[in-house]
């Protein structure tokens, strides 16, 4: 199968339909089996950009993961590449804050990260799902070591200040007790003939058998305290060795209390396709993948450049920029083609010579709000006291979640928690605080779940994405009606300019979307460049 820009954008279904139409059902079945291993992603491996016209040049705006990947692939294909980046670093939102780093957000609020050596927080992306083939492939090709990211930890908590007197509940208790109670109720309904219209006698038997297994019900189809249920939800006293005290089974949460608590709200989300195991993180911080790509193209990247205008004519593209820190005279960079990865809230303010459809699309997309707070603690009390190794606690509190570090587990010494990761209303409100207020609020709230915060907190740092000078928001939020109207226009090559980034993808807010959109865009630029041939 060809791997150029055209087939990258072909959906699997379309492809199978085409095969089905042309070659009959038998071959289609064979094709389905062959494609099975790659069914979930349109990623088809390294970009195939053969036949780049000699001397052709591409100017890339933005050295985030999409711009870096484009630079890497295009220069390998023989293009002359230059990258302009606003920040004084590569990676964009693929970013890791470590001790000694400084960050000044919009408004001039400065923070210095005071984490100990080896500790970090990823203010942007922090995990790579198993089906993000492109990200995994770049990590493999560039030898970036990965380690597991524990999205699901049944010993972490779900919490609401309005449930169980504000006492956090272990995920395993809420999860398995909810299963058990639902299974018991359903079994009762079956026993009383409530499903007679739906199921045959044999169907009812099968369902009861399944409910007993899934819900860990006893012979009378009851969900009760027992060694069997404790094997699932955990014991009050764990079984030991020798003449140690015998295991003490635990008691399930009562059905009514559990239903009233609302904590079942949090049970399904960690199993969503985006978040299901296996998940990974680069060893040492999420910036490692982007920086590995950057190392391949570093001489091509110019930092501290603020783009002020993007112009094009039939012969090429001309981009005006100034020194991002000191202002001053405008410089112009020219190239045959331009890949622009500037986030839309910023691009909407830059004069750009493209047609009305792309122009309208650029101005139509709002960015989601998100805030992360990193908190350094004197000791890893979540591991030492509560046996929570990695994973995430979910809460109704405005901090929304607490993330436990996957790196350095079961080691003595300090650790950095993700003390809050907020979206939506909570994120807007945290954004409106000063960085220090955010840290303080995260500590106050987190202490309701982990009282140890009060003793162990040392220092913190926060990133509110709407205060980010280089994005003006976290990621593109595409309501269906806006996407229907504008998405194709945003992604189309306009003359000699194409856009890329997570915003020109269906995987918004994930690096995979940025990389796939970039590969797709450079494939289509390449096709045009080849068509133009030496004229370019």
């Amino acid at each position, binding site marked *: 199968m060809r791997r150029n820009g055209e087939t990258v954008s072909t959906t699997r279904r379309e492809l199978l339909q085409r095969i089905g139409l042309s070659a009959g059902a038998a071959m289609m079945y064979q094709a389905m089996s062959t494609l099975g291993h790659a069914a979930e992603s349109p990623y088809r491996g390294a970009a195939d950009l053969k036949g780049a016209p000699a001397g052709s040049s591409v100017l890339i705006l933005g050295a985030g993961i999409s711009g870096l990947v484009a630079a890497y692939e295009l220069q390998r294909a023989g293009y002359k590449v230059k990258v302009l980046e606003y920040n004084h670093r590569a990676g964009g939102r693929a970013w890791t804050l470590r001790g000694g780093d400084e960050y000044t957000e*919009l*408004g*001039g*609020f*400065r923070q210095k990260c005071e984490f100990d050596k080896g500790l970090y927080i990823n203010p942007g992306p922090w995990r790579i799902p198993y089906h993000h083939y492109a990200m995994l492939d770049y990590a493999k090709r560039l030898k970036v070591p990965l380690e597991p990211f524990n999205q699901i930890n049944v010993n972490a908590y779900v919490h609401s200040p*309005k449930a169980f007197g504000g006492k956090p509940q272990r995920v395993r208790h809420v999860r398995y007790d909810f299963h058990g109670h639902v299974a018991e109720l359903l079994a009762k309904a079956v026993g009383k003939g409530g499903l007679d219209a739906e199921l045959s006698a044999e169907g009812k038997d099968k369902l009861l058998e399944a409910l007993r297994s899934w819900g860990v019900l006893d012979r009378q189809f009851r969900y009760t305290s027992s060694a069997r249920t404790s094997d699932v939800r955990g014991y009050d006293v764990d079984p030991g060795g020798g003449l140690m005290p015998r295991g003490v089974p635990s008691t399930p949460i009562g059905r009514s209390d559990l239903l009233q608590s609302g904590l079942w*709200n*949090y049970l*399904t*989300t*960690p199993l*969503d*396709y*985006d*978040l299901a195991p296996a998940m990974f993180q680069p060893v040492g911080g999420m910036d490692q993948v982007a920086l590995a790509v950057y190392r391949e193209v570093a001489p091509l990247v110019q930092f501290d450049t*603020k783009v002020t205008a993007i112009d094009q004519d039939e012969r090429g593209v001309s981009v005006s920029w100034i020194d*991002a820190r000191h202002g001053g005279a405008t410089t112009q960079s020219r190239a045959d083609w331009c890949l622009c990865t500037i986030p*839309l*809230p910023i691009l*909407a303010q830059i004069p750009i010579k493209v047609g009305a459809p792309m122009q309208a699309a650029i*101005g139509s997309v*709002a*960015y*989601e*709000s998100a805030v992360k707070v990193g908190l350094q603690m004197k000791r890893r009390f979540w591991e030492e006291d509560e046996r929570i190794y990695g994973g*995430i606690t*979910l809460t*109704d*509190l*405005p901090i929304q*979640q607490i993330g436990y570090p996957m790196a350095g587990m079961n080691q003595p010494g300090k650790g950095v928690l993700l003390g809050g990761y907020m*979206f*939506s*209303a*909570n994120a*807007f*409100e945290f*954004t*409106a*605080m*000063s*960085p*220090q*207020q955010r840290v*303080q*609020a995260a500590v*106050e*709230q987190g202490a309701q779940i982990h009282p140890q915060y009060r003793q162990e907190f040392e220092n913190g740092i926060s990133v509110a994405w*709407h*205060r*980010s*000078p*280089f994005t*003006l928001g976290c*990621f593109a*939020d595409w309501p269906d009606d806006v996407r229907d109207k504008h998405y194709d226009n945003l992604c189309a090559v306009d003359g000699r300019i194409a856009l890329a980034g997570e915003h020109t993808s269906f*995987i*918004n*807010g*994930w690096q995979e979307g940025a990389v796939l959109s970039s590969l797709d865009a450079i494939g289509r630029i390449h096709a045009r460049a080849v068509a133009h041939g030496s004229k370019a």
Partner: protein
Amino acid sequence: MSANLAHCLPRTRNTRIGLLLGLLLVCTTTALRADEPPPPFSPRVTTFFSPFAHKDGATIFRAVCQGCHMPDAKGATGAGTYPALAANPKLAAAAYPALTVLKGRHGMPAFDEYLTDAQVAEIVNYVRTHFDNHYVDALTAEDVKKLRATR
């Protein structure tokens, strides 16, 4: 809603309304921005997807708007710019800021799901009469209701 939010978003967006947690957030800010006094911070934080809890314009501005438009309403500039609300002639007609708040503009998100008609009127009236803006014709919740219905 983007799929990647699913890990933290209960599936009941917009159904939990107005739960107040009454959290006391001590605000001993030490903001490093030298030219700005720390803003008074609301003692309550809205929970999850409920609309913002704050009622009056000044509080809504402090709790939400200043996130981008800054405590002095003068906006800020990085690779792009958040416009100043201070001394802004675009506020002359109340419908413009009201529609901007309700439906968003460029990268600015729409706040129609987060603010009631009365809250939108409050915040628009507050900004149009503060920060060197002197537009005394007040917007009513009824006006906002009509604007909300426009497309």
